[in-house]
């Protein structure tokens, strides 16, 4: 059984088939990229995996376990974290608070203990903060620790969102267009971080990306989609030269 498996997943909105019987498997420690023109169903697949959408048919398996019926908040506890295309941060909270929310799936303290802020809660808080500081150091976010998100530039928010996902100590991370809205320099940083996430933190990466230079630099395998259907699957070079992919992007 592979590490993560999508088995013939289909998503229908009324008459529109957004994702049409898509299947693929991801190996542990892989950087797997989904590409495709606008409306191909890339983000829909992400939303299916993080259980924001219910699939019309098909199953999802993670570490051999069927996760198709789980609630969205249970997905995070299994070790699947994600970022969003349009950045979904908690805008009126500090960056530190945002990252600490990333630790939420590891909290074990009870409500009444937190009301009294018992020593056990304090100890847990310190452990969370320690982990958060490591991620802050990993992504060079020190200058923004106490800043409110609403005042931060777009590029920084993008990194903060990545940091929040990493704070949950995921085994699989879903990155929805990590480079969108970033300049060339920031995109280069992002490509280094994505590789470091795999090699240093040992996290498997599934990402959706449009920037082909970034895809070529980091991906092990690429899946090309169009109109919800799989066009081809292979190494970045193979996929880029595949006639169907060229046709989908440039027209037949």
């Amino acid at each position, binding site marked *: 059984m592979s590490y993560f498996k999508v088995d013939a997943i289909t998503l229908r909105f009324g008459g529109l088939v957004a994702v049409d019987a898509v299947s693929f498997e991801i190996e542990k420690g892989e950087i797997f990229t989904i590409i495709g023109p606008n409306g191909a169903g890339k983000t829909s697949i992400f*939303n299916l995996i*993080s259980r*924001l959408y219910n699939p019309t048919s098909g199953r999802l398996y993670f570490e051999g376990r069927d996760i198709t019926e789980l*609630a*969205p*908040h*249970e*997905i*995070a*506890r299994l070790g699947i*974290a*994600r970022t*969003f*295309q*349009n*950045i*979904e*941060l*908690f*805008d*009126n*909270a500090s960056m*530190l*608070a945002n990252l*600490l*929310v*990333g*630790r*939420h*799936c590891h*909290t074990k*303290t009870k*409500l009444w203990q*937190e*009301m*009294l*802020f018992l020593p056990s*809660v*304090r100890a847990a*808080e*310190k452990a969370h*903060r*320690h982990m958060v500081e490591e991620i802050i150091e990993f992504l060079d976010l020190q200058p923004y620790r106490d800043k*409110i998100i*609403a*005042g931060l530039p*777009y590029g920084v928010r993008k990194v903060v969102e990545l940091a*929040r996902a990493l704070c*949950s100590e995921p085994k699989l991370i879903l990155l929805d267009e990590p480079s969108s809205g970033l300049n060339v320099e920031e995109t280069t940083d992002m490509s280094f971080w994505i590789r470091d996430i795999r090699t240093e933190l040992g996290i498997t990466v599934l990402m959706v990306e449009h920037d082909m230079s970034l895809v070529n630099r980091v991906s092990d395998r690429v899946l090309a989609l169009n109109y919800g259907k799989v066009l081809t699957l292979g190494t970045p070079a193979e996929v880029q030269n595949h006639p169907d992919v060229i046709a989908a992007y440039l027209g037949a």
Partner: protein
Amino acid sequence: MRFTFKTDYDQDIRIVKHGGYVWSYGVLLALLALAPFVLSSYLQSQMVFVFIYAIVGVALMILTGFTGQASIGHAAFLAIGAYTAGYMQSKGIPFVVYFPLAAVLTGGIGVIVGFPALRLHGIYLVIATIAFGLIVEEVLARWESVTHGNEGMRVKALDILGWVMPRDGAAFYVLTLLTLVGVLVVALNLLRSPTGRAFIAIRDSETAAKSMGIDLAGYKVKSFAISAAITGLAGALFAHKMSFISPEMFTLLLSIEFIMVIIIGGAFGLHGAVMGAVFMVMIDPVLTELKDGLPGAAGRFFGMAGMKGAIYGLIIMMFILFEPLGLYGRWLKIKLFFQLFPLYKKATFKRQKTYVKSERNR
């Protein structure tokens, strides 16, 4: 301006961030404790109402300010707390039992209200909470065997294991103050632990909260329950302070007064709840003065029926238009002005517009 150099996680975790606060809040608390020996009985009584309003303000701040779930039904929670206290006292149950029980019972009702509220957002949730308030008001008027209906109910003086505290006395004042301080400490503790952060996460982005492992339903219900329970405590104190309770005291207008407490105070911090409570309690004598003190036509104008509601509406609009951050926001701005003098710029508190949110995912 003070810069704290952080070398320890505890510095960030503890409630009192630096020594200056120990002094300023210590002095404030000492002054409040001495107040009953200095103030006139009228002002002391007003202070008790400030504390009760502030307790409800903290409750509403947790639900609306931090979790982002609006409620215009908190007068009903107050009523449930008040009637629980009144009824149980009349049955001979001691205060030390019915005071916490008022919180537990009201919290339970909060859970019941919380569950249907899970599927409602924004204006629909507001309507549902208004409906809840009206239902409770009606139940209080009809359930005569317990509430004595529209006749109302007398509430005897508070009695802690034989120590009688008359409603105008210093002991009752201190008890209300202590309850407020206790509630504030619990709220602060929640805010610095995972539950409080989960509340804020739900307020700012439900989609992201879900995918970070926050059980939306669970935490929204928790927020409703905590908020209701705290309001129940305030209700028990309110019953003793009024010494007489009847259904028409817990109307929609009272719920709106509570919402005003947090809007006027500033719905982003616990300071706001207290400042808003001071404003709301002190506005009443001002309105009375306008009605009775002004001569001729002006006095008649302010004496018209429904004028109170109209003036409240005007105040809410003025705050939303000109000071959406409320009194606490204004206080922070004034403080910053002096800290940065002469470099303060108006734009400091202007926030960048947020980017498109995926509303469709919620």
